[in-house]
């Protein structure tokens, strides 16, 4: 079946099996491989994207269910080579190591700040509960998000 949607501001279309997961449509059919897959139980958040401005795990729905929506993936975050402030914060606070969880983290974190522009450390930790990282111990991820929010005072040591 033909599935079309707007991805990172461009209208995209691909012919896929009806059972195709949105994350596989994005990765395998559109070739946008920045969105990762870390699990098969909707637990890890590596696949987090924005659908109509809200964060969603793209492994939990079929591509067909996202027909006609406006999708943003990690590839759509930087603006003409300038990192999005959240990406910049992750870089400055060493919020990534292997980088596998990072696209999902950045997407989840930007939408967290959209809903709560001034979160406490505890709110950031709760807000990112659906995104797993095995490398960083979260310390610097939390610090990155607080720093992007302009609130680096309670980000921990350093």
């Amino acid at each position, binding site marked *: 079946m033909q599935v079309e949607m707007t991805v990172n501001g461009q209208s995209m279309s691909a012919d896929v099996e009806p059972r195709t997961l949105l994350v596989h449509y994005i990765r395998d059919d559109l070739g946008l491989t920045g969105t990762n897959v870390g699990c098969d139980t909707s*637990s890890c958040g590596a696949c987090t994207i924005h659908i109509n401005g809200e964060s969603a795990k793209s492994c939990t729905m079929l591509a067909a269910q996202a027909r006609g929506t406006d999708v943003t993936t990690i590839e759509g975050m930087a603006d003409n080579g300038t990192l999005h402030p959240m990406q910049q914060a992750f870089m400055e606070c060493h919020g990534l190591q292997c980088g596998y969880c990072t696209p999902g983290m*950045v997407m989840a974190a930007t939408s967290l700040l959209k809903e709560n522009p001034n979160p406490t450390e505890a709110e950031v930790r709760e807000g990112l509960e659906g995104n797993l990282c*095995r490398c960083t111990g979260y*310390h610097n991820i939390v610090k990155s998000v607080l720093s992007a929010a302009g609130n680096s005072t309670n980000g*921990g040591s350093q």
Partner: protein
Amino acid sequence: MTATESAPANVVGTPRLRKEDPKLLTGEGKYVDDIHVPGELWMGMVRSPHAHAKISSIETSAAAEMDGVHAVYTGAQLADMGLWIAPLPCAWPVTDDMVNPPHFPVATEAAHHVGDIVAVVLADSRYGAVDAAELVDVEYEVLPAVASIAEARDGSATAHHDLDSNKAFHWPLMPDPDALEAAFASATHVVKGEFVQQRLIPAAMEPRGVLAIPSPAGGDVTLYSATQVPHILKVMIAATTGLPEAKLRIIAPSVGGGFGAKLNVNPDELLAVTLANKLGRAVRWTESRSEAAFSTHQGRGQLQTIEIAADESGKIAGVRVHIDADMGAYMMLITPGVPLLGSFLYTGVYDVPAFGFTCDGYFTNLTPTDAYRGAGRPEASYAIERAMDMLAAKVGVGPDEIRRRNYLGGGGPFENLETASTLVFDSGNYGPSMDAALEMAGYADLRAEQQRRRDAGESKQMGIGLCTYVEICGLAPSRALGGLNYGAGGWEHAVVRFLPTGKVEVVTGSTPHGQGHETSWSMIVADKLGIDPDDVQVLHSDTAISPLGLDTYGSRSLAVGGVAVAMACDKVIEKAKLIAAHQMEANADDLEFAGGAFTVKGSPESTMPIQAIAFGAFTAHNLPDGMEPNLQEQVTFDPPNFAFPFGTHVAVVEVDEDTGDVSLMDYTAIDDCGTQINPLIVEGQVHGGIVQGVAQALWEEASYDADGNCKNPSFLDYLVPSAAEVPSMKLGSTTTPSTSNPLGVKGVGEAGTIGSAAAVINAVCDALSPYGVTDIAMPATPARVWKTIQQAKGGQS
């Protein structure tokens, strides 16, 4: 640009941001599953649902007839095709008589763990491969399964039906058995701890995956694999398949974490290479998360017994340890060696006059075990650090005091000190480490708050746990590895080359997967050569670009590979000096190299930047007679000794006595990894390591039922912690340079994990000590803690 303008920044030791990040932050990083080629076929694995079963028959026709299916192969068919000439390798036969049943990529007669591959399908799509694998109909004759170390020891069933015992080896480290016996015979205090190191699923966030691309006419095969060890993999693939080593190219592209789980030689890697080569089409596979519990090795899996003999004051006289280690169903690359890596560290940071260690390895019908972050060393530090707390209780002193009384070197600085476990510790200074940790944690205040809660009888009690660890890294002096029967050396290779335009290319044989080698190596080179770190490009992880290397594991990269890079820079400077002397018509001995330029001593106006020399070496118009063109040098560094990082961790937990819930309130770590290249990266490594150790202590366990089924293979039940479960951490460091290498560096990739599980469980036991609780098994789940409290209360009344 001249070198004097871009004056050397002295970047080593500064928290420099990583060059790796922009690519990874924008989705540009390519992991294996991101790379596609036309005509690729997807492998689907047919896996045994039984832990131990003979294969009676395999019916493949339904799968083979499915649309989009290219082929279906059983193990017997693959064996007949002659795709391999040897079983999967075990590079560490720890004893000459170690039992090592043959292990082929696809089982032929019997499956020995749930998930053992019994057939493979090839289909033209990701989903098609999974569907087709489900259509393969296998009949089994189910055999009794060995589902735990206890059952393996008992031996009423054997994990391999053609073996008459489950025992794989017995390995002793008994430097002086008589002295050990005497120490225990004359001791005032003897404490004994029996601990379970539960099995863990490493759970790197990127699942493993492979893509093999053949070139049918040329006969080459390129394998992309999510691996930590492309170089080792290349040798091992050649040795197991008979394909010429020179025709193989292994590439580890962006790799999403490893933690030891990606240092193996796996069935899928061998299948992809041989089938791609056979069929002339690209072959790929990516494990699903739930499949990973069966397709990727697990960690830990040990039963430990440790005894400490001490005098009246708690001064240690001897330490005796026995380990029963769960190999799982097969010996993988270094499966039997993992407990040995820990064996030398059961004396901890202490002055132990007499020591003895034995290990028995057992087969079970469970997923094979192998290295997982720390590999043997977290187990060792857990055992000795838990036992030290037991000793403190017995002697009646605090956990800090018992440690102080026993520190090697009296708690002061030392170098090159021989221990009872036959190692020579490069350097240490343990007392200040603990002082700094207790100070940063606010130890006195914590104890006061603990007392307040106890006195008030609050339901939320507090526990404070210490761990003073030492670990062994910088693997490894090749001779030492030879002495341990390890099948390879421990050197690392580096090339440093100036390009004609003055930029520098570094080729390293170590293989990062999140550790930031590109950044750290650039910093080392920048300071050595007096150039901008951004002018350094670090190439790695592709055997065609970096043909020599022994890869990344065991916190070895910096202490071996980084040192090789530094030494190669020294050689570049030596050669450049000869060229400079020639071109400046000066005596080489009169030249100084600083700030990226050679200057004639005493005449600062007579100077030549190294970039100009590099260009001169490229044009080769005016080189000393007989000198080869180009400015490029290589070094293979084989360290003379291991490196021994150490540190003190302090965990503070709150235990809710009504629910058994344990929460980590605060965590302080002072780590000493020798000279630091990039403190930002050091701290990141420590953070991540700590949380993995905390996770072992409180949440994670691969649990199996009596039939050998893993009950929690997916992230629904295997509890990898999220940000919500852990606090921010307070880190600090001391710096005691290593004597094992010229940079004074030690290694830090595993330190966090090695220190944290013991600190957390010591804290939990400390919280429960008023009830007389002296031990609790990992993971200290709410149910387990609650039960322990109830039993203790019952026992008291």
